[in-house]
């Protein structure tokens, strides 16, 4: 038998961010042995690791570069997403440091799991092969199941982890089945080869392929918490430790959207006539159920969970529009969403204290009288989530909607704008509580430096991207 040579396509430079971060994840795990009770060192090592990952993402030139027999790609989208992931993981770690101390979650594995989860996200955003996308989704999901249940003494956290795990495993089955059917009908797992096959066949209406696409929509729809596959989101967001909730609302969601966008625009764009209507229904349902559901909530974490469902609806519009401009809009949206979400959750954590979390809206009554700066920051984040100029959320929505209008989806955009208007009702409800109600009791705010730091970064990001977004937009490749 002939000896087997390593193929040319093994390109470790392209893989640099994944390698660097995996090494740091395992390093944190080993370092935990000597770190003792105080986990601050682990936190800083993780942050350094994330920083180095973000830098190493730029190692590969020229773009786009393919590696590993075209199953891995380094391009604009993947580099920008890698930066969003490292940013969101770094903010999550900063938020966790003191929260974990307060709640007695002092395990070093926490940081290792966040880093591994980030590795999964990078894999997800850079893969052009169904097998890799599946593996990426599974790494992300498994880390999240565990992180959701990290407060092991808290039944709500246990419930969140178990619900997420059972439903997530079920959804993974759909996703994998869909991939299998697409492989079966096109003969490849590679996104480009699938696209070639479909183009050559002239958009075949093979039932197996169509069924595969439907199953893919179900699988991805679950991972991004789009209606009607959103049932898990409110309970899981509510039960998870607050920093983990913020983390899963940003990073993994962005990663799932990266893969969603790549699969639907790279592999099956020629089948768009078939999946467009499907995604339109899912997007419209997500917006309505998310926004109307959020209005009913009194718990602020649940409200943000429903709001995140509606944001999934807006982001789906980018997938439906599937132009290069929509891709840039998706990137910009995820970045602004990272800043605003982490800022808002930072304030929620500041308002909580040992034992009690103060998650009900009444707990925010009169915040403006006692802590005007915090109340003002929360207002900025909520208005940005709603999409009010001059904050970042407005610019982000503007780009996605204009991309969709350019592709001719006017009705969809009108529905989305209407929904943005609905969303102000519940965002402003919190503002009303903060500014127009008498304080119900004393606020016991634990002004911890790192959480404050996250809030400040959130504020800077939200306002900067709203007022002067040009440099970042240039980076997203829109110009």
């Amino acid at each position, binding site marked *: 038998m002939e000896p087997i040579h390593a193929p040319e396509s*093994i390109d470790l430079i392209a893989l640099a961010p994944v390698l660097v971060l995996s090494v740091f994840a395992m390093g944190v795990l080993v370092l935990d042995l000597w770190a003792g009770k105080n986990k601050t060192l682990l936190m800083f090592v993780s942050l350094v690791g994330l920083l180095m990952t973000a830098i190493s993402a730029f190692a590969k030139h020229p773009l786009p570069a393919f590696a590993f027999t075209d199953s891995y790609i380094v391009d604009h989208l993947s580099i920008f997403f890698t930066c969003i992931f490292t940013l969101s993981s770094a903010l999550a770690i900063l938020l966790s440091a003191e929260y974990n101390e307060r709640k007695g979650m002092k395990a070093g594995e926490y940081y290792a799991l966040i880093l*591994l989860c980030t590795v999964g996200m990078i894999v997800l955003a850079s893969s052009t092969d169904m097998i890799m996308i599946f*593996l990426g989704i599974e*790494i992300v999901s*498994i880390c999240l199941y565990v992180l959701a249940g990290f407060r092991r003494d808290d039944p709500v956290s246990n419930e969140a*982890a178990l619900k997420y795990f059972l439903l997530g495993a079920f959804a993974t089955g759909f996703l994998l089945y869909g991939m299998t059917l697409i492989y079966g009908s096109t003969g490849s797992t590679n996104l480009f080869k699938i696209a070639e096959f479909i183009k050559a066949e002239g958009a075949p209406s093979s039932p197996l392929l169509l069924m595969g696409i439907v199953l893919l929509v179900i699988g991805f729809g679950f991972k991004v918490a789009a209606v009607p596959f959103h049932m898990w989101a409110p309970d899981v967001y509510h039960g998870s430790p607050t920093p983990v909730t913020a983390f899963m609302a940003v990073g993994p969601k962005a990663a799932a959207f990266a893969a969603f966008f790549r699969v639907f625009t790279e592999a099956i764009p020629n089948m768009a006539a078939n999946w467009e209507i499907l995604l339109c229904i899912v997007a419209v349902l997500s917006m309505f159920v998310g926004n109307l559901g959020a209005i009913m909530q009194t718990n602020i974490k649940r409200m943000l969970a429903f709001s995140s469902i509606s944001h999934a609806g807006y982001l789906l519009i980018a997938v439906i529009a599937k132009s290069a401009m929509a891709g840039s809009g998706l990137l910009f949206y995820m970045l602004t969403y990272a800043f605003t979400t982490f800022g808002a959750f930072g304030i929620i954590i500041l308002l909580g204290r040992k034992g009690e979390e103060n998650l009900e809206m009444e707990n925010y009554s009169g915040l403006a009288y006692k802590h005007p700066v915090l109340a003002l920051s929360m207002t900025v984040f909520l208005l940005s989530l709603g999409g009010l100029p001059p904050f970042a959320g407005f610019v982000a929505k503007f780009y996605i909607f204009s991309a969709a209008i350019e592709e001719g989806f006017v009705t969809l955009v009108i529905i989305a704008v209407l929904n943005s208007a609905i969303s102000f009702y519940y965002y402003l409800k919190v503002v009303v509580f903060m500014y127009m109600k008498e304080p119900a009791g004393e606020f016991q705010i634990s002004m911890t430096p790192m959480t404050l730091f996250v809030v400040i970064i959130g504020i800077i990001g939200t306002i900067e991207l709203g007022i002067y977004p040009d440099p970042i937009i240039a980076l997203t490749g829109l110009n």
Partner: protein
Amino acid sequence: MELLIFYPIAGLCVALALGVILNTSPVGSAMCLIGMMLGLAGIFVLQQAHFIAVLQVIIYAGAIMVLFMFVIMLLNLKQAASADWVSRDKNLYITILTSALAIGILYKIVDVTFMADLDSPAELPDTFGTVATVGESLFTDFVLPFEVASLLLLAAMIGAVVLAKPKLD
């Protein structure tokens, strides 16, 4: 000829899969699951994937199911456990709606399967499905998924330890 072998095995698999969920005793369910795994191995053989079939028997029917049995026996689950399960109040409308949906989807699946082009696939090379071929593609074309899968397993292992360790420091 192949179909003559395929249908009995496939039928057996479905029957055993039903056995897994209908059985009230956990040991019975596990035994049915082993049988189903073996049936799947048979289907893999029919697909000319002999090596995968062997792996299926060794890993699933062998290692994993033995672990299952150990856990079931260590936990000492009795049939009585299922008697404690409270069945929820059933909503008639939802039951009708979901079963109508399920029947519709099943009908469509069967329909689609008959519509599908069931030509016999291209001729397979002689080396198809051998250990050497599987190994070669695993370490060349699929080396990245192979390595990334190890990260997945690492994450799962850390997760299991975190959730199950009696005391986290």
